[in-house]
């Protein structure tokens, strides 16, 4: 619909300008040659256990992390986080793992919340498809779970992940991503924050102010 004549004019004149100016420029003989090897990354943690590294990284960014042995324990943990909140305040994604644990915990929650429910909710519970140990990052893939808003709008986000989804580095995660199947991939590292006023850290500006991560050990 936007393929008007002015559109194609602008496009072709920008490409013409790029080609013309590149042709004018001297041959490129600078020293920045493309490196063929993998990036040299230093040892960030003495710990080689990715779970332990993940926990340390989460603590560093102020997220509250609990490791549990199984889904039963995860349900216990969830119950203590949720406390005595009512069902209208808790929203969940469509993750089966989340549903099992929420049910086991005896929590009433809303899936497919309306806009109003979303904006008045107190807690959003989701899972994450992957996690990155060295930064404490949760990786949310839109193709796998409808968690784009439940992880963002409520003031508290509880995320349930399994140890088998943890990878050491961002580089490993990027290799696993399929952006065509997952049209929105979101990396979450800690709570929403800002330093816009006098560079003073303030938590929970637009996204959740609290992030709980419950890590279930895979058998």
């Amino acid at each position: 619909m936007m393929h008007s004549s002015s559109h194609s004019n602008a496009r072709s004149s920008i490409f013409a300008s790029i080609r013309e100016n590149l042709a004018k420029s001297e041959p490129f003989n600078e020293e920045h040659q493309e490196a063929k090897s993998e990036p040299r990354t230093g040892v960030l943690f003495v710990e080689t256990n990715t779970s332990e590294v993940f926990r340390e990284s989460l603590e560093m960014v102020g997220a509250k992390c609990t490791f549990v042995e199984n889904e039963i324990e995860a349900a216990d943990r969830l119950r203590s986080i949720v406390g005595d909140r009512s069902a209208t305040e808790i929203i969940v994604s469509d993750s089966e793992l989340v549903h099992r644990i929420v049910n086991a915990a005896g929590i009433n929650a809303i899936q497919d919340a309306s806009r109003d429910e979303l904006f008045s909710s107190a807690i959003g519970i989701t899972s994450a498809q992957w996690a990155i140990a060295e930064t404490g990052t949760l990786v949310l893939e839109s193709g796998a779970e409808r968690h784009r808003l439940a992880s963002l709008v409520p003031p508290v986000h509880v995320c349930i992940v399994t140890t088998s989804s943890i990878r050491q580095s961002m580089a490993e995660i990027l290799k696993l991503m399929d952006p065509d199947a997952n049209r929105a991939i979101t990396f979450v590292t800690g709570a929403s924050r800002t330093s816009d006023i006098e560079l003073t850290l303030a938590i929970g500006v637009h996204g959740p102010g609290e992030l709980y991560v419950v890590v279930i050990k895979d058998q």
Partner: protein
Amino acid sequence: MSTTHATSETFDRNARAALADPVLHGALRNLADSFVVRRRNAIASAGDWEDLRERARSIKDETLLHLDEYLERFTENAEKAGSTIHWARDGKEACEIVLGLVRAQNANMVVKAKSMAGEEIHLNEALEAAGIEPVETDLGEWIIQLAGETPSHIVVPAIHKTKQQIADLFVEKVGIEKTDNVDVLTQTARRILRQRFAEAQVGISGVNFGVAETGTILILENEGNIRLTTSLTKTHIAVMGIEKVIPKFADLDVFLKLLPRSGTGQRLTAYQSLITGVKNNADDIGPDELHIVMLDNGRSRMLAHPLTRQSLACIRCGACLNACPVYQQIGGHAYGSVYPGPIGAVITPQLFGLSKAKQLPYASSLCGACREVCPVKIDIPALLLHLRSEIAEGSTRESQPTRKLGESIAFRMYSRIWSRSGTYALSIRAARLAQRFVARNGKIGKVSGMLALLVPPLGAWTERRDAPVVAPKSFREMWREKKK
């Protein structure tokens, strides 16, 4: 409140005004003390920092050398995923495209996530003129918008304001009670902007990286307003400079290591949104339309020279601003441009014309701190020197001559007289005679009156510091005596 903003043309006057502002001074010292230290600590956790910088630069170089090919690939893949691509030769065209898209949705309000490209093309003014209300949602940008000001920093737009000033602004504009609690101020922004998010049909953002291989756009942030802007709305419009493209998805790794560490001293910002076209199931969450507006606005011109091409490698981290002793003195507004600081001093004249910003390339002591911190190794001092020579030689591609007659005569005389030892020695003898009128106790104190008018550099120099005198005997004379 005044809505006329400082321009680059009056840099010297803007800078003097900034220097006289004690509040600004306090804020800037805060910036230097905190961001510089945070950055230093953060890069220690990045493994081999120099290796990363080298890689980032080589990725950028490769992309820029074949920019046409990578743009073709990026837009093809983005379209395949359902994005609509638009092309804008300049800011005016870009604004018109955005206006057309907003009008097509019958929206009279848009939520905006912080975008330097949006600032560059003065998108807010264009929207307002068309009767569409732009709502900035980044806390710093919102503060700036409430105050009717422009950002003074690439990463922290309201760095020049104190929390008292911000509190006063909130009392006046949104009717809260006076407070100096940053959390209360932040929660006020959350509360008010939540309502705007709930109403919004159209969201406008920038783009940090566009991946040619997949047609993905990546946007980094800490607050969550970009996520809200790009997932709650029905239509997402992203304004993207044509230099933002990178070849491969895996290349993101290097930039995600460099950008947060350089910008805010974080290992990673709180959120990265990697958006590839539109949702592939109708009942998924997210906008129905993604429009990417590809902006040239002077960028393609910069490809013509290997030096100026470097400026297109910039990833807008702001590290050079924080490290710059000049920026630390005067802040961002003095530069009169959306791009301040060292990188602004090289980009502004290139984007908007040398004759409009001919003081900026001189607004540097060439100390090189910017080059040292730049995550993509842009040789900013070399670029400043390049632009200075274009100005001094009277740039040919400008309508207005940039050359300064008095200065060019002075330098011609300097090179005539001083490049030969005979005339050099004569000029020293003359200086030795002349200084008798001003030297006291072996130094030159504050020079004022007629003499300062006659010899302006001397007047300016001695305003705050003493000037040395020519020694009674030069080194060459002493050497001659020693060798006798």
